[in-house]
Each structure stands twice: as C-alpha cells, then as structure tokens.
C-alpha cells in the first residue's frame, strides 16, 4: 500500500510541476505585451507600467521568473486579481465551497442511482430493465448538459414554478457563512425555511452536473458486474447456498466496485469542466463561473491562478480516489 501510494505521489509531483509550467507559460505566450494585456483595455500610465513590470518581474530571465513563480505558489501566493485587487487564493477559497457542495451532491446522486442501475442492468441482462437503463444511460452520456440545464429550468422553474432559477439560496435569508456549505449553514442559522430554500436551489444544478457521471457510472458498473458475475468465486458463493442478494450485493459488487471507483475518480475532472457550464446556467457562485467571468473580464492573473488551483484540486481528489482504490482492493492494500 505504501509503495503504491509513493508511486502515485511520484507521478503527481512531476505532473504538478508540469501544470505549473503550463500556467506560468500561459501569460507569456499571450500575443502582444503581457503588461498591456494584464492592464486590460483601459491601458496603463507609464508609472503603472513600470510598477507592474517590476511587480511581475517581466524584465528578468524566464527561468528566474518561473522559479519565483513556483516559489510564490508554494507560499500560497497565486497572484492578485486585476479587477478586485484581491489575492487570487482568497477569491478561490471564497467560491470553492459552493462548487464543492454542488459537486458532492451531484456525485452523490450519480453514485446512489448509477451503481444500483448498473447492477440491475447486469443481473437482468437482456431484459427490458437492462435495455431501458442502458438506453437512458446512453442518452445521459450524450447529453449536452448546458441544454439539459435550460430544459430543466423551462420545465421545473418556468412552467411548474417548483424550483428557483438561480443562486444558492433565496435572497430573503441572510446568515453568516460558517462552513461555506449552504446546506449546513442554513441549518446552523436556525432560520425557518432556509434549509428548504437551499435544497430547492441545489437540486436542479446537482441533477445537471450529475447526469454524465451518472451515465458513465451506470455503464461501467454494468460491464464490471457482467464480468464479475461470470467469475469462479461467484459460483463458489452460489455453491455455499447464499441468498442471491448476498451473492450479487456482496460477493459480486465488492469486486465490481474496483474498476467503478477508478471511473468515479476520472469523473471528478469531468465534473470540474461541467461546473463551468452548470454554474453559468444557474448563476451558481462557484469557481467555474468565476473562471468564466474572469476570462471575459480578461483578469488574467485570476485565470492563471484559478487554472492552477483547479488542476491541483483535481489532482488531490484523484490521489484520494487512489487511496480509496487501494483500500477496497486487497491486492494493493496487502501487496
């Protein structure tokens, strides 16, 4: 297990350095004078230009600049927003809980629906259940989620009026952010109806963001289960006279989960990409919308720092998934 983790870590570090080089290079490869670009369309005074040049160190050799950049990153300095003049890290941390809450809920939906659906499809292979589950999964997998979000808004918000269109909670509630998770904060606030409001805001975005992971998990679970159900040890379990629930739900599923966990890990990156679209559609104040807004505002330090931070988050989550993978696979845990 330790060797496995060290190996994973060994890959992670060069990848992180590579990622930092890419984000570092990003501002330098912009066509034109980077300082003028950074300053945006308003232009700069010559004093400001010199100030920026010194601040950003553009007059020094590239290697030195990169080293300073890496050094700053390792000390938590991811640059400063040109628009808000706030440190990029602070802006990121202020928005990250919203994205995390949304992603967790979406993944929760995807897992609790996707795995049972895949199991049912595999066990009832070729039946009408299998066919409808797999058709639905393929439609979900092919879904343009930005459109899917709009469709759900038309149906549930505009036509039925069941759910709000945007934001994390109704404006009538105001309470301090303790954890950054609206579901928890609304409960902590003790305000009546706040929690229900938070849930109703969260539900559609979660469905939208969870759709593709759900479809992928269902498909992967089915194929993994089909493979496992043909294994000798499943026959052994049957030969023991165990109930079919125990055979499928314990002996087979436990083994099928190993590849499924890998796929769940890969979906984290997919969800971060999906978050940009989902947060845009639902005006969800998370890092995805923040990134897009910054791209439009040409707030390049934010784009640069945000890109690096999001990539780092994805890498950390993948490392955690590897941990989980090692934990559920005895060959690695005991290896």
């Amino acid at each position, binding site marked *: 297990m330790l060797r496995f983790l060290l190996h994973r870590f060994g890959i992670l570090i060069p990848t992180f350095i*590579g990622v930092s080089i890419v984000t570092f290079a990003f501002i330098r490869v912009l066509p034109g004078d980077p300082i003028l670009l950074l300053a945006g369309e308003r232009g700069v005074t010559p004093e400001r230009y010199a100030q920026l040049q010194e601040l950003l160190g553009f007059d020094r050799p590239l290697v030195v600049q990169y080293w300073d950049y890496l050094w700053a990153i390792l000390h938590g300095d991811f640059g400063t927003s040109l628009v808000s003049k706030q440190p990029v890290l602070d802006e990121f941390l202020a928005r990250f809980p919203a994205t995390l809450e949304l992603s967790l809920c979406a993944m929760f939906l995807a897992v609790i629906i996707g795995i049972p659906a895949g199991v049912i499809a595999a066990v009832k292979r070729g039946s009408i259940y299998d066919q409808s589950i797999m058709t639905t999964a*393929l*439609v979900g997998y092919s879904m*343009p989620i*930005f459109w899917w979000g709009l469709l759900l808004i*038309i149906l549930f918000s505009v036509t039925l009026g069941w759910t709000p269109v945007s934001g994390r909670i109704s404006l009538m509630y105001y309470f301090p952010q303790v954890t950054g998770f609206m579901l928890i904060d609304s409960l902590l606030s003790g305000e009546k109806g706040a929690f229900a409001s938070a849930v109703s805001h969260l539900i559609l975005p979660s469905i939208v963001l969870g759709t593709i992971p759900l479809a*992928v998990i269902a498909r992967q679970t089915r194929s993994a289960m089909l493979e496992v159900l043909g294994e000798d040890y499943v026959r052994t379990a049957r030969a023991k006279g165990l109930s079919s629930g125990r055979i499928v739900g314990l002996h087979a599923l436990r083994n099928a989960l190993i590849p499924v966990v890998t796929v769940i890990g890969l979906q984290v*990156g997919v969800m971060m990409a999906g978050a940009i679209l989902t947060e845009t559609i639902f005006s969800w104040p998370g890092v995805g919308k923040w990134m897009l807004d910054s*791209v439009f505002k040409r707030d390049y330090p934010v784009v640069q720092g945000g*890109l690096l931070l999001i990539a780092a988050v994805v890498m950390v989550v993948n490392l955690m998934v590897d941990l989980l993978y090692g934990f559920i696979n005895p060959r690695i845990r005991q290896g």
Partner: protein
Amino acid sequence: MTDQTVTETAADTTRSSRSARRAMLKEFWYYFSENKGAVAGLFVFLTLVIVALLAPLLAPYSPDQQFRDSLLVPPVWDADGKAAFLLGTDAVGRDVLSRLIYGARYSLVIGLVVVTLALVSGILLGLVAGFFRGWVDTVIMRLMDVILAFPSLLLALVLVAILGPGLRNAMIAIALVLQPHFVRLTRASVLSEKNKDYVVSARVAGAGKVRLMTRTILPNCLAPLIVQATLSFSTAILDVAALGFLGMGAQPPTPEWGTMLADSREFITRAPWLVTLPGVAILVTVLAINLVGDGLRDTLDPKLKRS
C-alpha cells in the same frame, strides 16, 4: 525452404489478403448489424451527413435571412405558428429550420476536423513514444499527463481565451485536449505489439523503423483507435458546442448549434422552442455517433470495455 517458394507464398499472400480483407469486412458487418442500436445510429448519422451536404437544397431559406415582420414565430404545431416557418423563427426573424440544417454542416465539420487533428498528432506522438522509449517517451507521456490533469473544457476555455474566441481556435483547443487519449492508446498498443512474433520477424527480415511503425504495427492498433476516434467525434461536437454556448466558440451569427443556444437563452420564457430545438439537434447527433461507437467497440474489440 528455397527462395522461390518464399516469393510464391508472398504472391499468394497478397492475392489472398484482398479476399481476406473482404471476408473480414463481411464478418465485421455481420456482427455490427446484429446491434440494432448501432445500425439506427449509423442511419441517423448518414442522414445528417446527407442533410449537411444538401443543406442549400433542403433549407427553405438562407440561414442569415431575416424576416423582420416575423420575429419569434413559434413552430407550426403551435396555434400562432406559420406554415412558412416549420420550426419557427428567432428574435431577428431567421428561420430556425434553415439554421439547424446549416448547423449540421458545422457540427460534422467540427467533429471531422477535431478528430483528424487529434488522431494524426496523437498517433504520431504515440508511435514515437512507444518506439523510441527513453527520454523521448518520458517527455511525451509526462506532457500528456499534464494536459490530462486539467479539466478538459476548462483548459480548452483558457486556450481559447489566449488564442482569441472563434470556431477555428475552439477546434484547435478541443483537439489539443482530446489528443492525449490517442497518444496513450497508440503507445500502449505499440508496446504490446512490439515484441510479438510478427513484428520481430518483420524486423529480422530487415524492415526499417518507419516501415515497422506504419506498415506492420499501426494496422494492428487500429481497432481501439477507431473506437476512440468515434467517441471523440461526439465529444468534439459536444465540447465545441459548449464553448459556443459560453460565447468562446463560433461567434454569432454563425448557425452553430451551441452558439444558437447561447443566443436564445434570454428568450427562455418567451420562446422556449429556440432553446429546445438546437439542443435536440445536438443530442440526436451525439447520441447517434455514440451508438455507432458502442457498436464498433463491441464488434471490433469485445475486450475493450470502456465507458
């Protein structure tokens, strides 16, 4: 064995290889056609190709023609619909059906261009990495790891932000983020095929490196690459549409489906058909291609159980 028999058998092999290929195609089609979903997907896809090719003949109007007296006309099945505009008109009075038909052209070209770019560069890098190993391999594969470490759409978004918004740059960006999958696949196949007997014997027979790579090994790695290319085709259409939706892809008034969706967002309550129809077009196209992709995967490589 004498030299003469060697040449004779070689001649035999070339002759029989053509009929063998035909037999393989026949067998391929036999298994592929067993999968009804895949055949349906192929049918829809071919229909789309025809629609795209014949767009000027099929579309009732030009995609940019504005009918100022018919703004936001609902589709014909609605009480307020007009027979002249089967699927209604948008906010500036353009015929939605015509725009959708021309949009098919964009989507298919996008898929084709992106997949070609990603496939060609991916295969080249993968062959090089798998064949030369050593530091070349390390550098290429670490670079691919780095690209894959970023959420694809986010990286594409930032790339477009650097290169400037537009359809061409969006396609380049998406091709770049899709290409590592091809590199990995090609490299893995090269590594597994490299030491097989037929490659060793080709090498012993004096085949050069380039010939080994392109003539001997590559054809045997094709199955997973074809499947990946098909699935990437649909991903490309989806992602370019997503960039269009975010305002970073094709720019208005291009009748690209994602861009059309972005334009219609503000009419979501007044003219829901403007939102619904382009999305249906994207979904049907992507679904059809994925059906074909699944069918190809099951036919070409039953062991390749990716999702």
